[in-house]
């Protein structure tokens, strides 16, 4: 009797481990170049899962204006309903509860012809709730708490990825500023030197003796 109980306990532990290992769902933050429309798909296993993530437009090639219209971000459910929309943004965080399980579509729309690089991160998190607890006798309340802790740490990781992407965008802006300052300063000196030399030559010619004689 004791042996079977112990074996059952070990079996339960293995099953829970396997189940919890399967709940590890994380992808790295990837960057993709958006020319017109770029869509990324992510599979949501259970209805009610929290889908969270963020995206940042890293490579923005605006020359004149400082107000870029940004890109549009649209999330579509497997039933072709729009779950989440953000328009004209240079980066945002999002979080929603999946209305059903299935393949969700995350699309970036670039309204302008210049290609933009978007760095995104999508995470689907599942926490076993009381319904799963009642169904599965091997699932302890502590497993729920551990899953919640795992999800909280995932949200910290997601925030870090967002910060890293924002930092990359800021770095890009800084590099652009630095290049502009150097370029414009050098160009300014060159133009100044050339213009002043031309002016000197012109005025000299104006007051040269041959011209003066011709005037008379």
């Amino acid at each position, binding site marked *: 009797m004791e042996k079977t109980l112990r074996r059952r306990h070990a079996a339960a532990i293995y099953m829970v481990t396997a189940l919890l290992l399967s709940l590890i769902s994380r992808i790295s933050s990837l*960057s993709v170049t958006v020319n017109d429309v770029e869509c990324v798909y992510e599979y949501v296993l259970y209805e009610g899962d929290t889908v969270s993530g963020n995206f940042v437009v890293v490579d923005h090639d605006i020359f004149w204006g400082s107000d870029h219209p940004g890109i549009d971000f649209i999330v579509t459910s497997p039933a072709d309903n729009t779950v989440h929309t953000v328009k004209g943004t240079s980066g945002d965080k999002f979080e929603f509860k999946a209305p059903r399980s299935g393949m969700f579509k995350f699309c970036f729309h670039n309204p302008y012809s210049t290609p933009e690089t978007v760095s995104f991160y999508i995470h689907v998190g599942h926490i076993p709730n009381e319904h799963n607890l009642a169904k599965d006798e091997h699932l302890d309340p502590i497993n729920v708490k551990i899953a919640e802790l795992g999800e909280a740490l995932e949200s910290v990781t997601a925030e*870090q990825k967002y910060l890293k992407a924002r930092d990359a965008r800021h770095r890009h802006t800084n590099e652009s500023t630095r290049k502009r300052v150097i370029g414009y300063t050098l160009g300014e000196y060159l133009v100044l030197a050339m213009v002043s030399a031309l002016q000197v030559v012109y005025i000299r010619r104006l007051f040269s003796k041959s011209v003066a004689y011709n005037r008379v």
Partner: protein
Amino acid sequence: MPTVAALSLIVLLLCLMNNNDHNMIPVAEAVWLTIPSTGTKCVSEEIQNNVVVLADYHVVDETVTEKPSPLISARVTSPYGNNLHHNENVTHGQFAFTTSEGGNYMVCFWVDSSHHDASTTLSLDWRIGIAAKDWETVAKKDKIEGIELDLRRLEGLVQAIHMKLIYLKKREADMREVSEATNSRVAWSSIMSLGVCIGVSVLQLWGGR
């Protein structure tokens, strides 16, 4: 007998878990991309030095027709242009490497054959750092299981978060130095351009005399 049933279920689950080539348990780990019929689809990530990168990709067969699966080719390039992985005309593949330089790592996919006019769907499972760690090996080696393994995994995650925070702080410090250098450079160049203007006008006056 319930024990036998439980054991068989566990064996089945473990078998399915270890079968990494075919995703029988649809775990939400991979992201799906659409590869256009012409041109390449590239995804990249900025990775720092000495980080483990593990990736797995396979073509998703959506249509249930007799047509064979479309074949894709993949190439992974390091930030300095070295070719880390190259695969031609396959339906699935994987690669793993440890980064030796910090920078932008890019993986590009393209469809070789011109049979398929429609775009192909590819499932890419890209993990770096702590996500690429093989916890099953750790569990077997240290003989830990269940809750202890979960807590060990969470501890690894917390350490990775700590390391990443230090890295972000260093990057912010580097960028702040560049910003301050640019700031002082702007101030210097403004004063110098004023000085150059005055000098040039003096030269002009002297030259015109």
